[in-house]
């Protein structure tokens, strides 16, 4: 549908690391009892993944699930599959106290890749990326705004922030990854 536009329309920048806006991604904020068996089933039904441990992201065949707080998860799926995933969550959690809200359009989604991608992120996020492994997830700060970042199974970093500050986040990451500014640690 031509009416759909992501925050930055897939913009890219390449310095010593590459920063790409990934277009529209499906995201659902899910709050509830993370330890319940209904939650485990809901997550499995919607994504094929497991409920992630604290500060982790778990990967499934149809999406991934990130730990946001002791009672909140972020479910990541294809944009087109958001409604289906939400319906699956609601079906499995029927009768439970929970909240599932689509937030796909409230976010911008970036990938930061390259051998020294962690250095670019370390300039703007107070996170120890030297010890960051695939499946690690942090909800933190990127310069002056909130952001969440994780490492995928192929070693890239992915990051989400609020849509309204997508341009700021892109500009900050582009600056952090500028050619000639590698820290080399």
């Amino acid at each position: 549908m031509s009416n759909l536009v992501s925050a930055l329309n897939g913009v890219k920048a390449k310095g010593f690391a590459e920063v790409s806006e990934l277009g529209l991604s499906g995201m659902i904020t899910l709050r509830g009892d993370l330890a319940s068996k209904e939650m485990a089933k809901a997550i499995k039904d919607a994504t094929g993944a497991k409920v992630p441990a604290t500060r982790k992201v778990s990967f499934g065949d149809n999406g991934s699930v990130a730990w946001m707080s002791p009672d909140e998860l972020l479910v990541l799926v294809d944009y087109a599959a958001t409604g289906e995933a939400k319906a699956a969550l609601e079906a499995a959690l029927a009768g439970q106290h929970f909240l599932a809200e689509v937030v796909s359009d409230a976010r911008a989604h970036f990938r930061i890749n390259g051998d020294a991608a962690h250095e670019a992120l370390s300039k703007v996020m107070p996170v120890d990326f030297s010890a960051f492994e695939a499946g690690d997830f942090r909800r933190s700060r990127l310069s002056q705004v909130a952001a969440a970042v994780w490492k995928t199974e192929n070693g890239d970093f992915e990051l989400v922030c609020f849509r309204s500050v997508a341009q700021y986040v892109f500009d900050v990451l582009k600056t952090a990854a500028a050619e000639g500014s590698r820290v080399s640690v």
Partner: protein
Amino acid sequence: MSTRLSTGGSLLNRGKAIEFTFNGKRLKGFEGDTLASALLANDQMLVGRSFKYHRPRGIVASGAEEPNALVNLGEGGKFEPNQRATTTELFHGLAATSQNHWPSLEFDIGALNSFASRFMPAGFYYKTFLFPRFAWKHLFEPFIRQAAGLGKAPKERDADTYEHFYAFYDVVVIGGGVAGLQAAKVAAKGGAKVLLIEQDASWGGRAVIDGGEIDGKSAEDFVAETLNELKANENVTLRTRMMGAGVYDHGYVLGYERVADHAPNQNGPRHRLWRIRAGQIVTATGAIERPLSFAGNDIPGVMLASAVRDYVNGYGVSIGDRTVVVTNNDDAYRTAIALKNAGLEVPAIIDARPAGGGALMEEAKALGIRVETGKGIAKVKGGKRVTGVAICAQAGEGSVLEEIKCDAVAMSGGWSPVVHLWSHCGGKLNWDEVQNHFAPDAARGPTNQDGDVFVIPAGAANGPISLGDVLADATEAGKQAAKMVGKPAKSVKAPKVESVDEAAMEPVWLMPQGASAKLRAKSWLDYQNDVKVSDVRLAAQEGYESVEHTKRYTTLGMATDQGKLSNINGLATLAGQLNAPIPAVGTTTFRPPYTPISMGSIGGEARGEIFQPIRRTPIHDWHEEQNAFFEPVGQWRRPYCFPKAGESHADAVKREINQTRNSLGMLDASTLGKLVVKGPDAGKFLDMLYTNMMSTLKVGKCRYGLMCNENGFLIDDGVVARIDEETFLCHTTTGGAERIHGWMEDWLQCEWWDWNVYVANVTEQLAQIAVVGPNARKVLEKLGGMDVSAEALPFMEWRDGKIGDFDARAYRISFSGELSYEIAVPASQGRAFWDALLAAGEEFGVMPYGTEALHVMRAEKGFIMIGDETDGTVIPQDLNMQWAISKKKEDFLGKRAQERAHMASGDRWKLVGLETLDGSVIPDGAYIPSSGDNANGQRNVQGRVTSTYYSPTLDRGIAMALVHKGPDRMGEVLDIPKLDGTSVKARIVDQVFFDKDGEKQNV
């Protein structure tokens, strides 16, 4: 003459010459030079003028402690004042100029101050500028402003970039001398992740210059081997040109990396500020040599003995052909020996100790150097350059025994450990009676969250002076650091060092000890700020007993070097005058940064476009394309109005309002806060948060609500929609979205944790567009889809469905008094929906309107605005909004406060409308005075204007105001002052100016 020797200079690459300029003069140096060593190689001893007396100032040190050699560096966008020549690496094309003189460095008119110096003692400014009172403004302040500061302020925008870097290590070792290298090596052995940083460009510190054997190898070889071992360890990170700037709570370290100061044309940032979390911090920061206080010790050519040695051994530079060494310890003999070995003359070593030194003295004597023990310098001869010294008995009052011709003086008053980083976070010091210096007290270090000491001083920074002791101490520090971070402490032996038999130093705080007042007035403590022994003594006489007060009274240690050379000498002088032991007087506070760091590095990447985040709605680009005039609303930029070419803002607002009231307008309302509240207890929760009843709201309907804090004051308002039995969507003000979200979570997490309610902030999920005006329904019907008729979607209700191709939720709500829909679509469809509305609305002349038109239209309708009609002291009752306060509810936030006598009484300022008799607009923010004065002699006030606008609809000025018992005074005429001193008459009227019965919105 200072000059370059034909040989020597372990830090130099003589194969690579470098050109630079000083005060426009073209000079040559070598790779490896600092600006200071290169200036000295070109006989440029004079580098600046002191702050107060404009005395000629020469280079006195070779490192971070240098007080004198501050220069303006670079040009244009790379210009920076107060750069220390001793820590500035030479690069091709470097351009430096000297500071604080007029008309020239060689001839400075300000030096006349020096002749008047006896009339400008400590506290001169404080005493003089008190009287007469008028003179401050007209004479003293202009004079001081002219004199303030050493360097010039940059005129152009900084051309360089800067950045931060967050790093995490088990152990951070600060200082890359032999102690730091050894401590890092030992700490890393057990597997700890170690960062070792060195402020200079090269490793090894003093040991490389001073020589010595370590484990049977030269110091240079030891450094090279240790470095190789550290480089091979993947757990170890090594950085040069990086200073430990500060130590803070919880093992936080600031590292200041000067990435490109030595290569200003390379790509990338100039400075990088490392923000490091460390398990343990090892401070191997070495020691700084102290000057001696004798008359004329500030004349260019008088230098620290260690600096003279650095220049000869490290840079192949001689300070003079004939150098007199003056000392109270054995270390300075190394300078005499180094000079002699370089083929230079040392006419005499003046040793203040009656018994002289140990083995080094014998070595000097064997080289044929004359040693005078029990002697001191009575005064240094010369003006802009040393020409000789007058020798006296140290025990006497300064009677000259002999004059010795020389062109340089190398002085040493002993060594002070660099305890700054140890002390930044509260580490305490002990006075060492043997070495006569302050050293860290291991039992009273800075402690972390577990109560453990997290800073370990190592090497000379911990007190030991001899190479063997330094390495033994550093080895222990490394082991301790490993142990504290939970790594196995390997048994490591300290390297073996042949010990040199050194005689004890003797404290010499004044030379000669009985120096006359005249000599004391020429014995400098602080070179940059011109503080002499006589000034500190005067401060003590005048009752300044605290070292902190003396510092501020005399300005001792307040210059850009922060007293690195002057502090200990100054406080010892104070202690002597107060007849108190030195530790009883104590030190001033050591505060970060260790030496000044650039403002750019503190700002990091936050400049230009990314100085701060700007929040953009999905329609922001369109607003920019239309040249909207933006206003900041929190971090959002919202269009204030959309002026056409040549149109004033006022005219644009008028046009936008007229168009909207008469046909069709559109507003980008995406910034409004949208909070989803869900759960079995959601209704109960909202009943507590809002003053009115929300739990009774029917699914599909909307209700306007007010939120108060516990003190009863209004904090936010907005429309609540009930989505289903368990779910509400609460609209907040634009600025309130994050605040109210936090407010809700606060109550849910801290007070009502057992209520089953979840909140999610979906503000940015939705683009929200207000479609407003008599043709609003028509344009939506034109797009097609959901039934938006008065019957299908009555006022204060909402429906989900499609409008055109768009997934929409339509709210029938109005903040303008017109027929109005607010349509929410997913943000990714927002721009397309906006465009579709613009196209469909063309036949109705559709125009977007901005926040000012929004404000004027709501004021015409008498609607309040949070932040205009409220200011944190206003309760809903003040705004006549009793109708929005439930009387049925047992409780809500603010209820109890609103029942207090002062709140419940009618004796308050309350909201009314104001209509000027002449139709003019009342000034924004005007106060409404009443007769008489209050107890403080101020005019009594009976109210204030909260909103005031020109109303295009009514073609007159309208206003809202909080007026004392306002609603009881309808029809009364008030006098309201204007900025020009006149006043305007306004009548108290109802606050609703337009369409009181709501006929326009209910169609």
